[in-house]
């Protein structure tokens, strides 16, 4: 017999009212505005945009406010919102070579055309809590300097290596249609484009852990940071009614070019290989981890043994999405009364049989 259970409506309504009050916190403390979150929690906003897979800083900031700062919950809100919107089409591929660079560093070459610029970074800070921030106060204005003549041109480090054939070229654009995991379920094996889409929206913590595992020996790739760059790129789109690329505006991206070791074969001279990371907003950790995992997932293509989690594309792609992961883990807290009732009855019956059998065995022994 199936028994439907209803109820809890009033409890749910009141729980949501309580949530609204808890979200607001102490009313004696001024309420946060969405603009404050967007401007002052910018890296958190970037993370929600990256994992929500929707570039819209105001929306991500609002989602964070609604979610009380819970990243995965905010990602959930953003993903749900996007399902309500029509898709106009796809942009032209963004040109990260033409990025207005706000930060650009290389761990492989000291002297680069365009230079190494640190931008706003936590690197080289002492990681000591700054108690002065607890008090509100004006910030010292940023230093300024005349840009050097070459500041506008920042060739990719990988392009410099490619001039001498020292690194493999990027896979060429053959005009083939690009897979989209938001439209079609992923079929394995998934091509590199699909893997990069999944990693770009993947959970930062999960991708970071996998990237770290490759460094610790689970699918080692001997990585060097060829280059990390952060800055704005123009996005263009060709609407049908206009027939030419329309500039939509600019978005901030972080790109990581990982340079990895590769042994040559009898047929091919030794060349460095590549891992690539690209994310919405400023997120070096994510872009670097993504590049490590991208390279690890190329193991089969490059004739390396596939023996570690980070090299197993089904493992990585099926588990890197924070929303899918939280959905399946958190659904366990929803009522499973009927399922559990069935299990309970089964266990009771088995126990009854167990005790009956052991009783009769004892009688037989006596």
């Amino acid at each position, binding site marked *: 017999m199936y028994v439907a259970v209803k109820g809890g409506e009033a409890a749910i309504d009141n729980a949501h009212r309580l949530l609204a009050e808890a979200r607001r916190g102490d009313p004696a403390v001024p309420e946060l505005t969405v603009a404050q979150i967007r401007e002052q929690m910018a890296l958190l906003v970037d993370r929600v945009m990256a994992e929500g897979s929707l570039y819209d800083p105001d929306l991500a900031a609002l989602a964070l406010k609604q979610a009380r700062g819970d990243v995965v919950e905010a990602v959930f809100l953003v993903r749900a919102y996007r399902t309500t919107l029509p898709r*106009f089409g796809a942009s032209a591929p963004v040109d990260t070579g033409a990025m207005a660079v706000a930060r650009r560093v290389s761990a492989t070459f000291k002297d680069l055309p365009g230079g190494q610029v640190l931008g706003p970074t936590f690197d080289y800070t002492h990681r000591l809590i700054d108690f002065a921030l607890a008090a509100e106060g004006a910030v010292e204005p940023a230093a300024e300097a005349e840009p050097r003549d070459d500041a506008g041109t920042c060739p990719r480090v990988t392009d410099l290596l490619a001039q001498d054939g020292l690194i493999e070229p990027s896979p060429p654009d053959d005009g083939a249609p690009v897979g989209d995991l938001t439209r079609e379920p992923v079929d394995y094996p998934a091509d590199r484009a699909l893997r990069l*889409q999944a990693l770009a929206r993947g959970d930062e913590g999960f991708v970071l852990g996998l990237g770290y595992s490759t460094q610790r020996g689970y699918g080692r790739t001997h990585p060097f940071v060829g280059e990390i760059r952060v800055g704005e790129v123009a996005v263009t789109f060709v609407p049908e009614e206009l027939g*030419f690329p329309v500039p939509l505006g600019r978005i901030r991206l972080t790109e990581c070019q990982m340079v990895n070791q590769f042994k040559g074969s009898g047929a091919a001279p030794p060349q460095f290989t590549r891992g690539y990371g690209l994310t919405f907003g400023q997120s070096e950790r994510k872009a670097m981890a993504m590049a490590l995992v991208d390279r690890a997932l190329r193991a089969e293509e490059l004739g390396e043994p596939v023996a570690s989690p980070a090299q197993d594309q089904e493992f990585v792609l099926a588990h890197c999405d924070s929303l899918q992961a939280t959905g399946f883990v958190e659904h366990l807290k929803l009522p499973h009364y009927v399922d559990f009732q069935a299990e309970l009855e089964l266990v009771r019956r088995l126990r009854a049989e167990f005790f009956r059998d052991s009783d009769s065995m004892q009688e037989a022994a006596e």
Partner: protein
Amino acid sequence: MATSPLHPGPEEIAARQVVMALCADASRDDLDAALQALAAPNAEDLRPPETGLVMATGRIGGDGRPFNLGEVSVTRAAIRLPDGATGFAYHLGRDRTKARLAATLDALWQDPARRARVEAALRSAAEKAEAARRQAARRTAATRVEFLTVARGED
């Protein structure tokens, strides 16, 4: 080929893209001020302003095969002026009012007789954007690393 409103040449399109990019980067207030200055006639909607998505694509390695990076929110507007001129706008974000203002400016700009006035009305927005770009570049330049080579040992 002669340039006409129906068959714009590449130079005409490039100039229009510059104005479109300027409007996309400008604030709603800037565009509103520009239209006020032009005393523009009321536009009717060809299509009501609408928010949707564009899938932003990148390239593997920065220069290789495309892949889907993630979506961007985009708002579009299409208007017609009383004289029949049409204008379009596609902007990042969800500001329908701003997209409609930009579509109106686009329609006005396409009329060669009004072009100079539209560009003049947008000049302050253009100057503001250029000043912001220059300041960002100067602040970035101040964080450029100047490496010093320290000689060690005997040569």
